[in-house]
């Protein structure tokens, strides 16, 4: 099996989906000739031509609005938003149109498309190249939200997202775009949406993480193990609808919960995860659930490593939670 990084794995998934289905088109800024600023769409315009791999004018609102129209026609657009920080001009189209089309048309117009976009910090990108905006999309009825952490899942989840009948926001953790490597089958396969994965079993405390922070959670879990605390780490993979069964099973087993995410704490996805767990596992909990997250400030430039919920912040939270 070939070794790949996330960039290559996403590229593979796009290539394969486009080969199979002529309705799949890729559109975004700089996705064509240059193959994307992160090179995720490299080589696609050579293979599929400018008609299907489309460098658009510089307007996220235009890209997503037109993609919605293409979807209504019956195409399957896979949009790239260059950085998730630049998705906001398209938010109206996403929230008021894309997410509501099926509902408001009584199922007549299921506007199916995928929006891929790099998320997260740790690349010295400051406020505008670092945000992790999942909460703003999870909150919107009608959208599915996916965030892979490794090349295998990236390919399988993207293929599943393209096949899924609903609109999917596909968040690519850019900090590990090249750092996360692994074996990726050449053939097509699906990683089903709504399936979390236990990546490290343990019995003392459950850690929920996704994207680039999964590696920080695993690092902290390894260090905690040296101190006798065995953390069970779940990679959520699909953020919404989240794999509630896997979470409940784990928390009922450990009795303790730590949630990790890069985005700010207040009304972040962690708030929802903690609520879900409290509602379902209250009598199994042995300690208050803990959130280890970005702070409620804009994402900084110089101090980004202090801002992010890296292993050095996860570890003490984990130990405290396990001992309290």
């Amino acid at each position, binding site marked *: 099996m070939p070794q790949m990084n996330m960039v290559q794995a996403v590229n593979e998934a796009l290539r394969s989906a486009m080969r199979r289905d002529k309705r799949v088109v890729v559109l975004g800024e700089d996705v064509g*000739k*240059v193959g994307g600023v992160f090179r995720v769409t490299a080589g696609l315009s050579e293979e599929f031509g400018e008609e299907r791999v489309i460098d658009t004018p510089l307007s996220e609102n235009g890209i997503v609005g037109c993609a919605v129209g293409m979807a209504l026609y019956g195409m399957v657009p896979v949009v790239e938003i260059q950085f998730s920080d630049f998705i906001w001009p398209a938010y109206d189209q996403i929230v008021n149109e894309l997410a509501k089309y099926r509902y408001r048309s009584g199922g007549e117009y299921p506007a199916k498309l995928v929006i891929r976009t790099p998320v997260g910090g740790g690349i010295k990108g*400051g406020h505008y190249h670092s945000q992790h905006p999942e909460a703003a999309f999870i909150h919107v009825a009608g959208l599915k939200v996916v965030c892979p952490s490794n090349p295998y899942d990236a390919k399988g989840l993207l293929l599943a997202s393209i096949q899924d009948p609903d609109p999917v926001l596909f968040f690519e953790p850019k900090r590990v775009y090249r750092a996360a490597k692994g074996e990726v089958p050449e053939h097509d396969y699906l990683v089903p949406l709504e399936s979390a994965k236990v990546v490290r079993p343990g019995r003392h405390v459950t850690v929920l993480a996704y994207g680039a922070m999964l590696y920080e959670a695993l690092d902290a879990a390894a260090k905690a193990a040296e101190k006798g605390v065995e953390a069970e780490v779940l990679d959520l993979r699909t953020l919404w609808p989240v794999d509630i069964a896997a979470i409940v099973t784990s928390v009922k087993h450990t009795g303790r919960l730590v949630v990790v995410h890069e985005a700010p704490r207040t009304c972040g996805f962690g708030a929802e995860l903690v609520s879900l767990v409290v509602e379902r596992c209250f009598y199994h909990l042995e300690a208050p659930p803990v959130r280890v997250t970005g*702070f409620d400030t804009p994402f900084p*430039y*110089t101090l980004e490593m*202090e801002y992010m919920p*890296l292993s050095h912040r996860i570890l003490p939270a984990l130990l405290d939670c396990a001992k309290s």
Partner: protein
Amino acid sequence: MDPMPDIPATFRSEQPARVVRVLSDDGTLDPRHDPRLSESEVLEIYRWMVTTRQLDERLVALQRQGRIGFHVGSLGEEAAIIGAAFAMRTRDWLFPCYREFGAALMRGLPLQTFVDNMFGNANDTVRGRQMPNHSTHRASGWASVSSPVGTQITQAVGFSWGAKIDGKDVASLVYFGDGATSSTDFHSGMNFAGVFKVPVVFLCRNNGWAISVPVERQTATRTFAEKGPAYGIPGVRVDGNDVFAVVSVVREAVRRGEQGLGPTLVEAITYRMGGHSTSDDPNRYRATDELKPWAERDPLERLRHYLERRVWWDDRKEQALIADIDQRFRAAVAAAEKAPPPALETLFEDVYEKPPWHLQEQRVELLRGVRAPSSHS
């Protein structure tokens, strides 16, 4: 072949407007648009253009050495950037894109402040919160740079509109690229400024590219200037590598605002001679021979040729200027590198005027906690 055979001739737009050019190849000025700058004014402009280019080169080198994280330069666009800023009055306001640090320095941003921002250190007035090249300097009428393309366009309109409501004559110069004309903010900004006759100079730096996307992918119109009339705004095309022409056209635009005639769209035709930024490799999408005709129209060389013809400048002065820039830049970098990173608590300042309870709590949490590994993985 007629490209639009089925459209009646009366529905077609006029031929693209002529490009205003003042500085001819032989180094003389066209009297019709000559802004009649004095020797000292021309020299001031020239010094800032040289300063911009010299700093650009040095900042790229610092980035390559890993001493700063990023730089987005102005190579080839100095005349458009400096000329437009020069034409504005002191009381006017400038709303930058991210490629115009030279104009900020000319307006009064101290070199040390600029360099501290490039390093994001404790002396940075925005405390290392923004990426390099994201300057802010209220004292010189310089708005705060934002990365999202186009957002400054509507804000510039609102600023001068506010002044207008207040009975003050304050024009805004807003810089943006060819790519930004595709943004919704461009449409809204032009539309509002047209309707409310706001004194704004919309300065589109048409440098041929939006990262890897050429202008043909931004618009089906032959020029950017012709978008103006659709909003009831005159659109002017100017040779953006001819600083006299830029000054002349922007001054005229300011005069129109002064007379209550509202906004002007200026398309400055220039070329991005470097990559989009230090993160970009333009060899992936454009052939180097595309640069040749533009290198021959280098804005600095054209101006220098004029200066030498007037015997206002010579090699000795050039060397002295560069030595001075070099010495001041080195000193600024040395000071910037000596400064520590911003203090941890600055993370929580300026989110609100006063930090609410939750930020006070989070500040304590951070300060009491373990320090992050300093290296980037």
